[in-house]
């Protein structure tokens, strides 16, 4: 747990998964939940210091009520990185975390060395309306994965023997917080800010994502000045899980180039 106080904004007690040493990397998780110590994070941490905070409003991280809009979240991330004494950092953002990562790179370009967006939310294409990520659970589950959904999805949830409803409440709280930035359409104006990003950017995209078609990744590449597309075949919304090797290789190669 790490604590951050932003004057006149609020106090944030944040769950932080941290591992490794070397150049720092900020990982911002997706709309459903923090992945916990998933394999891809462990592997990224073999060559660098990975900092993966759980978003306020998710799991045990507090301070969500201090956010009025996405600018608050962006400045919170800036303050969080500064509180670690880090001036420049690589940022990898997945799904909703991709929206936040791109916002940070646009608003605090001096802070973001390189940016990786993975199946990122934040844009809307009228001619390619996306599936509602809060729609029927079975429909969403099917859309997220290229292959059969895994037995257990990556999560930082810890069962509580005293609370039989803990899993339901955990999911409800996480998704409820996501609605702040993704409901009814996951567009909070990012399109206008993407051209301000200075950082070299890799747009990673699991090409079978039924929630976000590849055209969304192509639109990110079109709008960000220095961006490259890295499609990952045979993967859906979670390419880092379905194609861990390809994902880690693409990200590492880009960051080390």
């Amino acid at each position, binding site marked *: 747990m790490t604590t951050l106080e932003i004057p006149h904004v609020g106090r944030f007690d944040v769950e932080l998964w941290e591992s490794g040493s070397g150049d720092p990397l900020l990982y911002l998780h997706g709309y459903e939940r923090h992945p916990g110590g998933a394999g891809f994070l462990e592997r990224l941490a073999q060559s660098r210091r990975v900092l993966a905070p759980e978003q306020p*409003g998710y799991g045990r991280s507090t301070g*969500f009520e201090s956010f*009025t809009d996405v600018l608050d979240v962006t400045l919170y991330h800036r303050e969080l990185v500064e509180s670690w004494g880090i001036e420049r950092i690589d940022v990898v953002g997945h799904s909703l975390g991709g929206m936040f990562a791109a916002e940070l790179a646009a608003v605090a370009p001096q802070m973001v060395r390189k940016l990786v967006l993975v199946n990122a939310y934040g844009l809307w294409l009228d001619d390619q309306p996306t599936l509602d990520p*809060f*729609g*029927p*659970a079975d429909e969403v589950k099917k859309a997220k994965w290229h292959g059969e959904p895994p037995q257990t999805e990556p999560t930082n949830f810890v069962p509580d023997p005293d609370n039989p*409803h803990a899993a*339901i*409440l955990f*999911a*409800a*709280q*996480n*998704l*409820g*917080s*996501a*609605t*702040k*930035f*993704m*409901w*009814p*359409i996951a567009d909070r104006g990012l399109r206008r800010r993407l051209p301000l990003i200075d950082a070299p950017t890799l747009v990673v995209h699991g090409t079978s994502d039924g929630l976000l078609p590849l055209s969304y990744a192509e639109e990110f590449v079109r709008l960000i000045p220095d961006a490259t597309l890295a499609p990952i075949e045979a993967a859906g919304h979670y390419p880092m899980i379905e194609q861990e090797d390809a994902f880690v290789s693409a990200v590492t190669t880009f960051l080390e180039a």
Partner: protein
Amino acid sequence: MKYHWFAEATYDGLPETYPQKHPSGSVDVPASLVDSLHVGAHYRMFIRLMQQADRLGWDGLAVNEHHQTTFAMTPSPNLLAASLASSTENAALLVIGNSLALYNPPIRVAEEMAYLDCLSEGRLIAGFVFGTPMDTAFAYGVPPAELRARFHEARELITRAWTEPEPFAFNGTYTKLRYVNVLPRPVQTPPPIWVPGTGSVETWDLVLDEDYCYGYLSFFGLANARPIVRGFWDRVEQRGLDVNPNRMAFTQIICVADTEAEAERRYGDAVRYFFTRQRAPLHFAAPPGYTSIASQREMLERARGVSTEDRLRATRGELSFWEYDDLGFIIAGTPERVRQRLRELAVELRVGQLITCMHMGDLPEETAAMNNELFGLQVAPHLRDLWAEHEDPWTPSVSRARVAAGAAAVPVPTR
């Protein structure tokens, strides 16, 4: 006890296949199922039935707000209330309510409700509601995570707009206004305010902090309401407040006829229609963030008065008419039976404001009119004595006085 006439303005021309072919009665229901001229005729029927209820001595006429649904085709209850304000004399206009977060800016609610209070000479009851998930999150696209904050900010703005004598500036998170000066102001300053809830402690504390009337508005009767209503009264006692029955409203579907056989014959199809055409799939009914985590925990842990299976059987149309009645989802039968069961319900739940649902589903107008007449003349007068000793600041003084004056003219039949 006081009575407030109510009906969901349910579209009555839905085919038998409706629940199977279209899994939802809200949000994405096919518009082609609805004939607009027929809807107009239907609105006129509801107005006639409420005018009749006003003549028969109902204390209030209740209207509600729903969007994109065939279950209740009243996107603006204020429009229906306006028709009633100018064509009724006595009863309160119970607008229950406006989904505050959906009006932008929310002074629209302050203005329209003030208009209603002026037109009705001070007969308005102002209902403030969150609105269903289908109404708010889906039809109007409010992020569930913001709904409560938007509701409370709007509530504060509207209440101040009704009561502050001078123009004021309002710098909210969601609404910013340099000059708030609503005209006209309501006749009542402010009108009585009712807030319905589904059993969360947050809403109980809100209504008790602000001295609002609390409504538990379900269509699942006494057994379902028991644990929630008990929880409410426990909370009132814990906080050392007056356990005045008039601070609580409750809905009940009522089907009165001269004999039990006639009740089943005349209301059976409509009751079944009502319960089977209101489906909402889970992803519409319970979007993430709509219910606070504290409230969800309470709901998951609270004992259920009616099993989920019985509710599902009701909405699948698997209950017989008298099973709906046994479970308390409806109260049906002769005037004697109905008044006996209503007295039991009202005494046990300690309800002072009974919202009587006199029309349901595709009930023909003549049957609803009969229901009104039998209830108004042979049921209501017998239960007037209940809770009469308690003050009632939650209904307008004008409607109280006028209904009381009119009520004397209603002959109480001898047994």
